[in-house]
């Protein structure tokens, strides 16, 4: 992520080099007959104030819908706070303690990470392969690119219902297909790991094509003469892909991994609508309940907004830790590859 986001940050010093923006106005008097002082002053204000005028509507709204909630969540998390009754007594870190002591916290944390691992790994590998296939001189290339993106326009709620029926415990198509090849049916909604696998399939189905297009863009930026010289040296297509393409698109792969970490750990609609029990907490024993489902459960079933906020903050910490871990891991893989 730092690789990709460093562009605007790194480019910033040039923007800030002359913060008053005086250069255009300084050039004015030499080209035109001298303007009356009040016009010059007006012009000066126009130049210095306009940028703030342009960004302030965004920042004012962003303050209310983006920033205030983040800070206020921390505030709510240290109070007794009822969904209906509102703010109660200050309780310090007791909400956090209660959440951490709740047996479902650890369970939903493990479920979230398990679903995330089952979805992100295969997804990135498959996306790299699909991107590689798209990065050839295909006929009707735009049509192919659009086709792989098709699942992306299906809402997670719809995806969950469709796959919930495909993975039906009794009459699902997947179990029937297993029966055709002589395997016994799987209890997709009951068995813990199987349910994680089913939910990971939904995520993979929806996001692989999207990530493939991001990676394809990176692949197209790889200088083509690298391939030509490798071809002259006798490297085959697969060899070229593994030793030129894959190393060259590393920063984008890291970007894809980090964004899928942030998104994947917040998974909610898929497990909730996969659940066929009335409570919709992630299975009868919460065998596939996730962290975000726990936030919802605390806040809108148990009506405890204080604990919901504490859970949201804990989820945020988990996301940061795993994102950093991913980042460190991918860097390490590079240094190992480099020493070879």
């Amino acid at each position: 992520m730092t690789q990709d986001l460093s562009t605007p940050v790194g480019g910033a010093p040039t923007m800030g080099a002359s913060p008053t923006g005086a250069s255009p106005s300084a050039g004015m008097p030499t080209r035109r007959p001298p303007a009356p002082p009040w016009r010059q002053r007006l012009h000066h204000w126009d130049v210095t104030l306009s940028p703030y005028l342009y960004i302030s509507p965004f920042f004012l709204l962003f303050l209310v819908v983006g920033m205030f909630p983040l800070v206020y969540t921390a505030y709510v998390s240290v109070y007794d706070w009822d969904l209906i009754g509102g703010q109660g007594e200050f309780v310090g870190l007791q909400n956090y303690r209660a959440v951490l002591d709740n047996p479902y916290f650890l369970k939903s944390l493990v479920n979230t990470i398990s679903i995330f691992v089952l979805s992100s790994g295969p997804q990135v590998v498959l996306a790299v392969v699909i991107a590689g296939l798209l990065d050839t001189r295909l006929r009707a290339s735009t049509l192919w690119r659009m086709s792989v993106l098709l699942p992306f326009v299906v809402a997670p709620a719809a995806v969950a219902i469709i796959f919930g029926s495909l993975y039906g415990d009794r009459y699902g198509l997947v179990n029937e297909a297993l029966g055709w090849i002589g395997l016994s049916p799987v209890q997709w909604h009951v068995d813990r790991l199987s349910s994680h696998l089913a939910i990971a399939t939904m995520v993979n189905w929806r996001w692989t094509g999207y990530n493939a297009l991001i990676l394809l863009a990176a692949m197209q930026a790889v200088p083509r003469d690298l391939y030509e010289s490798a071809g002259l040296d006798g490297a085959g297509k697969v060899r070229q892909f593994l030793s030129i393409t894959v190393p060259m698109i590393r920063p984008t792969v890291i970007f894809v991994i980090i964004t899928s970490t942030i998104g994947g750990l917040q998974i909610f609609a898929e497990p909730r609508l996969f659940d066929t029990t009335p409570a919709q907490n992630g299975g009868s024993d919460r065998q596939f309940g996730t962290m975000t489902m726990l936030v919802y459960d605390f806040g809108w079933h148990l009506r405890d907004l204080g604990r919901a906020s504490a859970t949201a903050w804990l989820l945020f910490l988990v996301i940061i830790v795993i994102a950093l871990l991913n980042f460190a891991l991918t860097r390490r893989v590079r240094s190992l590859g480099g020493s070879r």
Partner: protein
Amino acid sequence: MNRRPGFLVYGLLGAFVLGSALPLYWSFLVGSHTKEVMTRQTPPLLPGGHFLENARRVFETVPFWKALGNSLLVSSVTATSVVFFCTLAGFAFAKLRFRGSTPLLLFVIVTMAVPTQLGVVPLFILMAKLGWTGSVWAAAIPWIVTAFGVFFMRQFLVDAVPDELIEAARVDGCSQIRVFWTVGVPAARPAAAILWLFTFMQVWTDFFWPLIVLSNDNPTVQIALNQLQSGYYKDYSLLLAGTSLATVPLLILFVATGRQFVSGIMQGAVKG
């Protein structure tokens, strides 16, 4: 690299696309048969003739027209608002020099990585205080501006508008707002279209926030689906007919604007 790819490449891609389309076909397949279809040993290969009947039952079970109207309203209002505010701010960050622009932009980028769930509780408290819970406007509130929108427009406009053009317009005595209107806005148009589409889709498919803030009698499409699904007894013909209906609007949008979606994702990656 000049050779056209062989059958293997087309075959593998074809298999992937088939896998992408199959679940959607399954949804329509089951949605067009009676509910007994799920209990058959081998599912039928072709759609049946009961789709309209199932669709009628969807409209009887949940307020689906209202849901469609609400989703359309919330998605298009937020998409327009995001494009407006984020183009304005993105232009300032891309092309104007001002004190504090670097830290402010950095701040916007950092908040992009913060999960939305973290803000849900206070937003709900705010909506409850204002008495907006249950109203369709509450569903739009968290989306009226996005950090991503500013970042996306800024990245696009940095290259799309040559600095010389702005200088020239200023030398000719253009006020800042005219520079934005005559130089910035025309250049921003392709990116604005992409940002509009993405925001529309993101809000249309959003589930967590409308589930919290809306009620079952005034839902968005996703919440109507949730309602259909949450009964104890599952009638999959009804459920998947509803799912097909819910997916059709975005499919139409995708067929009409798929090119923009593709180039938007690929641009975001190169410039991101």
